[in-house]
Structure formats: C-alpha cells, structure tokens
C-alpha cells in the first residue's frame, strides 16, 4: 500500500469508529495513546493506531465489525497488568479496552454465582459478595487492579489456587464476540455445556479467540478462620522436603509459599515481617476452614515442619499476625524492586520433586549470565517466580536478562515442567514456546486460532510462535534433522 492509500484507509476506519462510539470512547491523539503503549511488561512498547473505550457490549460488537470490515487487527485489553506483553499494541491495530464494562450484573447468593462485565476488578467481585459471606476465590497478587476479563484470558492463578483452583475452575460461563462480531455464549449456571467444552478452551486463550463481555463466576463461602505457619529451614532442600511432607500427610493448605534467602532478606528489610535472616528458605503454609479444621491442620503442618528440621517456627495467633506474616510474601516483588534497578519476573512450573535441582541450576545460570536472581515460589503447585536482577540503563543488560530467563525456562521444561504457570505467553515467551512444543502442536494451535478467527485479526502474533520463528531459533524438535515419525504416511 502506498503511504497515501494507507493514511486514507486509516482515516476511513477512524471515522467509522468515531461514528459508532460516543465522543469520549475513541482516543487517537499521541498523548492519549501513550498510557496504552505497554502492559506490566514495560520492556516492550508501541502506541496503537487508536484506543476504543466502549461502554456496552453492543459498542464492543460495533468496533469488532468495523475493524473486521477494514481488515484491521484488534487487541483486547483489560486493566493492562499482564506480565507477558499480551496487550502490546501494534501500529496498525485498534486497542479495544474493556475497562468501562464494569457493571456487576447480578449476584445470586443462594446459587453462589456472580454475573459481571469483563472490566470488573477481580477484588471487586469479592467485595460485592462479602455481605453474603461469599467471595471469588482466585486471587492473583494484582487483584486490586486486574480485570476478570483479563483473568479469563490468562487463566490467572493466585496464592490460594492450590486449594481453590485457577480461573478455569471458578468460571461457569462467558458471553462475548468472535473476531468478526458474531455473538457467542458458552456455559452458564448449568454445569457442563453440551458438546465440546469450549469454555475450557476460552480460559487462557490470551485474547486470540474471543472478546469476553460477560463472565459468570462461582462464589465460595468465606472460610470462618485462617491461620498461617511460618517455618524457616536451613536449606531450600529441607523446605522442599517439608512441602512434600505436608502434601504426603493428605493436607491441601490454602496457601503454600516459599522464598529463598535472597528474597527473604529483601522482604525483611522492607516490611519487617519477622522472617529469620539466617534461613536458607522460609515456608508459609496457610490453613483455612472451620475453627476445628484449622486447629487440626495447623498442628499437623507444624509437626511436619519440625520433622523436616525447621530451624524456627511461628504460628499466627490473630488476624493481625496472619496478615503480617503474609505481608512479606505479598511485598516480595516491590521489595526486590528496592534492591535492583529493574527485575525480570519468570513464571515456570516444575514437578515439586525437582525443586532443588532446578534451583541449583538457576544459581549456576545466575553466575554464567552475571546477574543475581531471587526466588519466590508457589511451592504447593510448583510454580516458580525467579526474579532476575538487571539494570535497563546498562547496555546489554536487558538482553542478558532475557537470555538468562529463557535458560531458566529451558531448565523447567527439562525437569518435566512448563514455561508459564500463570502469566501467559504474550509476546514475551514466544521463543520459550518453541522449547515446550513441537511443530505439530504449534500447527494445531494455529489451526484452532483460525477456526475462531479465520482472518487472523484478534490479537495476532501473540501466544503462539510461527513455525518459522521456531525453526530460526533452532529449537524445533526435529531429532537430528529428521521429520517426526517419517514411517507414517502423510496426508
């Protein structure tokens, strides 16, 4: 397209959008677009063509239809707290913000469900259900800011997901639109849709398959009591053994978190949560439920920790103490942010039994790449958050941090794990996807994308790398250059 033709096309789509939306629902000025240049992964930035901020599902549909007719990519955006560049704009794309669809449509306390619009903040659902003694269980650390639509698109987890599940386990239905504006309704209050479980496929689809405009979630009764045990261990290995011991006891703690020595020290300096500074690792294990259940479980958790050589142990005796013990874990990222100019948060998951081997590997890699790394760990479900220290102002540091990060994810895959436990792939982990999946799986992902969005206009280029990219990376699993099982006939 010539430059003139391109700018004519741009003005055509912008005027079509302007005609379909209220005056304050379309942003096109550079200074208006600036806040939308990136999400929580601020290493990547790019202003979009325009930002649409519809108020209603009908306006969302209109935006999609117009963009489809003009063959213009659309990037759905929630609160922009994603950590993988999932809402990174493109210069030729319309960023479709769902932030203004923030109505709580209804809460049914007897059926224990809430129907909400996608821009509703995660924490707002629990706040609105609190009067009924109910809450929405998945609690990403970003819960005061992130939107339920973003949670659906990322299948977000939280500190309590070992016991209460991820987003996929707590969403009952969605309504939304396909890329061309076709309305779609999947699931609802009745269990198990008929036909294929499309709802499960929508969870974690990173805005590539559907734009979500309504979400029905399950609410749970708020536990009567919660108590936390903080146990310190001389080594990460001992703490890891204690985790296996707790689960081996038949206990599923409401939360089970670990921090290594570097993370513990950073946190203790920052919030003074009372963590011992000489420990190799500390473990936080929470129990919730009725008073009787909690008393019993806490006693058993304490016993396991002692058996595995805990060097110190504290049990919260009040809500204030419980929150204080958690404050450290919750502030882990900002605490690390105080001791390094920048940090890069990884998100691999591994089978727990390989924890110490993987942490040893991370320590080796840290030396090799010349960058420090603190480890915060959802220990119960094997989800690691290594935080790589770097300084974006130092030439070459960003590249080193990314190379270190990819090596960590390789180590996770080699240990039988995966490259992302809860943050998603976005643009950030496209290369890592080539490590985890072989060509036939990636081709299937692309075909599924095309089944929902034949024109390839919804959040294109995210979440699934092209086969070409993987081939270039040299990470395709071709086994010595051979085709996968060449003995089979091909069609």
């Amino acid at each position: 397209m010539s430059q003139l033709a391109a700018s004519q096309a741009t003005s055509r789509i912008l005027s079509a959008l302007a005609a379909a939306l209220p005056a304050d629902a379309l942003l096109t000025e550079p200074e208006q677009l600036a806040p939308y240049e990136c999400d929580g992964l601020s290493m990547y930035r790019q202003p979009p063509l325009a930002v649409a901020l519809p108020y209603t599902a009908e306006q969302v549909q209109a935006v999609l239809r117009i963009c489809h007719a003009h063959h213009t990519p659309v990037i759905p955006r929630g609160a922009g707290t994603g950590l993988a560049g999932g809402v990174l704009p493109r210069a030729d794309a319309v960023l479709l913000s769902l932030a203004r669809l923030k109505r709580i449509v209804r809460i049914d306390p007897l059926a224990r469900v809430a129907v909400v619009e996608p821009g509703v903040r995660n924490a707002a659902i629990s706040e609105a259900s609190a009067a009924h003694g109910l809450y929405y269980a998945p609690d990403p650390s970003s819960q005061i800011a992130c939107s339920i639509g973003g949670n659906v698109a990322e299948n977000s987890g939280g500190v309590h997901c070992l016991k209460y599940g991820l987003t996929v386990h707590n969403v009952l239905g969605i309504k939304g639109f396909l890329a061309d504006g076709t309305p779609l309704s999947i699931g609802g209050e009745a269990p198990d849709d008929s036909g294929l479980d499309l709802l499960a496929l929508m969870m974690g689809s990173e805005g590539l398959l559907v734009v979500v405009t309504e979400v029905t979630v399950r609410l749970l009764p708020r536990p009567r009591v919660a108590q936390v045990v903080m146990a310190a261990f001389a080594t990460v290995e001992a703490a890891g053994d204690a985790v296996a011991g707790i689960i081996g006891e038949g206990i599923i703690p409401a939360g089970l978190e670990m921090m290594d020595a570097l993370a513990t020290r950073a946190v203790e300096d920052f919030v003074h949560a009372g963590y011992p500074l000489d420990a190799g690792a500390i473990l936080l294990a929470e129990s919730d439920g009725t008073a009787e259940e909690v008393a019993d479980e806490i006693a058993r958790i304490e016993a396991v920790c002692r058996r595995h050589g805990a060097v110190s142990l504290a049990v919260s005796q009040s809500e204030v103490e419980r929150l204080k013990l958690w404050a450290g874990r919750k502030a882990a990222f900002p605490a690390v942010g105080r001791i390094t100019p920048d940090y890069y948060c990884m998100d691999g998951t591994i089978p727990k039994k390989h924890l110490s081997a993987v942490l040893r590997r991370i320590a080796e890699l840290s030396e090799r790449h010349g960058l420090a790394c603190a480890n915060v760990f959802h220990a119960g479900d094997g989800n690691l958050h290594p935080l790589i220290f770097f300084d974006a102002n130092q030439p070459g540091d960003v590249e080193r941090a990314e190379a270190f990060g990819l090596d960590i994810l390789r180590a996770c895959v080699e240990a039988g794990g995966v490259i992302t436990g809860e943050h998603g792939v976005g643009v950030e982990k496209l290369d890592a996807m080539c490590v985890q999946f072989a060509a036939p799986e990636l081709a299937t992902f692309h075909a599924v994308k095309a089944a929902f969005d034949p024109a390839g206009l919804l959040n294109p280029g995210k979440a699934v790398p092209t086969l070409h990219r993987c081939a270039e990376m040299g990470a395709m699993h071709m086994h010595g250059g051979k085709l996968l099982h060449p003995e089979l006939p091909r069609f």
Partner: protein
Amino acid sequence: MPVSSAGPTGTLDAQSGAGPAGASTAVLDPAERILADAICAAAADQRVLHLRGGDSKRGLGGTAHGEPLSTLGLRGIVDYDPAELVVTVRAGTPLADLQAELVAHGQMLPFEPPDWPGATVGGAVASGLAGPRRAFAGSVRDALLGARLLDGRGQVLRFGGRVMKNVAGFDLFRLQAGAWGRLGVLLEVSFRLLPRPQREETLRLPMAANEAIQRMNRLAATPLPLGGAAWCEGALHLRLCGSAAGVDAALPGIGGQTVEPAAAAAFWAGCAGMPPGHRPAADMRGPDQLEVPLWRLSVPSTTRSLGAEGEFAVDWCGGLRWLATDAPPSEVRSLAASLGGHAMAWRGNLAQPAMHPLDPVRLALHRRLFDVFDPHGVFDSGRFDAAAVQAASGAT
C-alpha cells in the same frame, strides 16, 4: 514412592523421563504405533473408526458407527508420585486399577467417575462423566492436567503437562474431556489428585424435593466440608468429607440420621453414574430393554423441583436432575433450555440424538474444530452429527 509400571511393551521409561515435552511426542511405543497405523489406514480408505475402551458406556450418548478401534493395549501407570498429587496413566488402563493404586496411597480422582465394569481411564475422560463430588471438587476437565493423543492424521500431539499450573498454549487437553473421542485417540492423560478425606459421614434427612434443593444450596453457601448433596426417595442426602475434627464439628448442626458406611458408599457410587436408588449399574449395558426413557438434565442449582415433569432424583447440589418421562424429546429439551440448561438422553430413547442440540454459532465452531483435529473424518461423529441435524431442524 514413585510408581512406574511399564505397559506390555516395557518401553515406558523412555517417555516418562524428564525431557523437553515436545521431544517425546515423537516416541511411539508398539501399542501406540498400532493405533497410529490404523488411523492412517482408515484415513487412506475413508473408513470411520469408533474408539473403544472397556465398552462400559456402550449406547450412552448415542450409538457408535464405524469399526471399533480398541485402546486396551495402552495399559499402565506411567508416573505417580503422591507428593506431587499428580498421576499420569495410559488411556486403556482399567479405571479400577488406577483407583486401587490411588487408594493404596490415600488419594483419589476428584471427580468421582462412574466405575462401571470394564471402564477405562480414557473412556472416563472422553465421556466427561462425573459423580456426586463434582459439585464440590470439580469436573473431569477440572482435574485434567495434560494429555498425549493421536489426531486424525495419526500424529502424536501433547498438550498440557504434569504440573498443576500451566498456561502455555491453548488448553486443548481439557477439550478432550467430554469429546467422546471425536478429536483423537487419547494415549496418556495426567490428573490432579486429591487426598482421600480422613473422615466421611453421610446424613439422611427426609424432606420433599423443593425443600431439599433450597437446603442443599443454603448449606453450600456456608463453610461446611460438603462432598455430596443429593435428593432421592423422599430424602436429602448429605456427605461430609474432610478432617475428622472438621466433620465431627459440622455434624450436630445439620441433623438427620447417619447412614451406615457401606450403605452410604453404595448410595454415592450409585449416584456417580446412575440415578440414585433407581436401578443397578449393570443395567447401563442394556439401554434398549428399558421402557421409560431416562434423561439427565443439567440446570442452574436452585432450579425448582421438576417432580411434575418426571424428576425422581437430584444430584450435584441441585445442578443435576434425573427424569424418567415419556414426554416427547423436544419437550424435554425445551424444558431444559427454558431453565437455562440442557438435557442428555440417558437411556431408552436412542431413536433420537442423545446430545442436546448446539446453537448455530457453537455448531460451526465444532465443525471447524473437527476439521482441525480430524481433517479426513476418521473418528466417529455420530453423537455430534445427530445433535447437529436436530439443531438444523429447529429444535432447541
């Protein structure tokens, strides 16, 4: 203690070892190769295959078409470490074998699948059927962590993994639960497990269905260790599961009579696949012999009792209703749809499609997904096609 019982071919170790998930997809053991060859041959001569495990769900969800392809050669637990709360098992493994192994380690599948004689793990996943614990501990797909499968090109695909948290790639493994083998042959699946509750108590409280539905929903909104809530034969049945301390503390507040453990176990096992207290599970194998058609309705949990419409049992804390009715299928479907749910013909009404018809948008997506996984139409589509025909003819 990790268990690694190799299948008949003894080649499992190569697959279960740590290594790039993608790399091992190329490995096919002889039992798997037989299946891949059969798929490729069927694709070449345009034949249709229907996948068969233990044949325990024959007739359910529709009649099978095409040549049977047995998965029984895929046998054995590939990887089980109780401290991970994860098990990886081959699809043709008898469900009973898996359950026995889990029981021996004090663990269980959260979704409490119907354990009909001969049932295999692959069939349990493909049918997506869950028992009474489903309302509290999740469905089949909720427990699924990953799967290896052969698609309609005879190609091995591995989705998901063996860990609890994983958001890499689309969740195409979860899509296999309830797909009735339409998207591929499951080779190996990984589940998230739960510890078996330290203590279980079942209470029986005589009351009418409507009152029971209200009561179960109200109880579920309070923090009680519930693991089952069903109504049949004039009584609400509640199962409390958890730590001994927790269950003991909860019991007095609820009232009712405790059901003696063996009777309670039989009751809940019956619910898992059969309308509670209705007919023995063995009847599943003879659907044609029954006079009154049986329906399984999925509805919002607080839906009124459908007693007038033939409801004789309620499970899943109100979300599942069993109806025995001679009403025309279209009426039962409309009833379910008007309540915001859907109906599956369970037994005795095989003359018409079992699956609830799909709306046109979802139907189109189904067709495209079938093409993605099975471009040559190798896998039996009977259950889905019948539903599609019905959708086209205007029934909802």
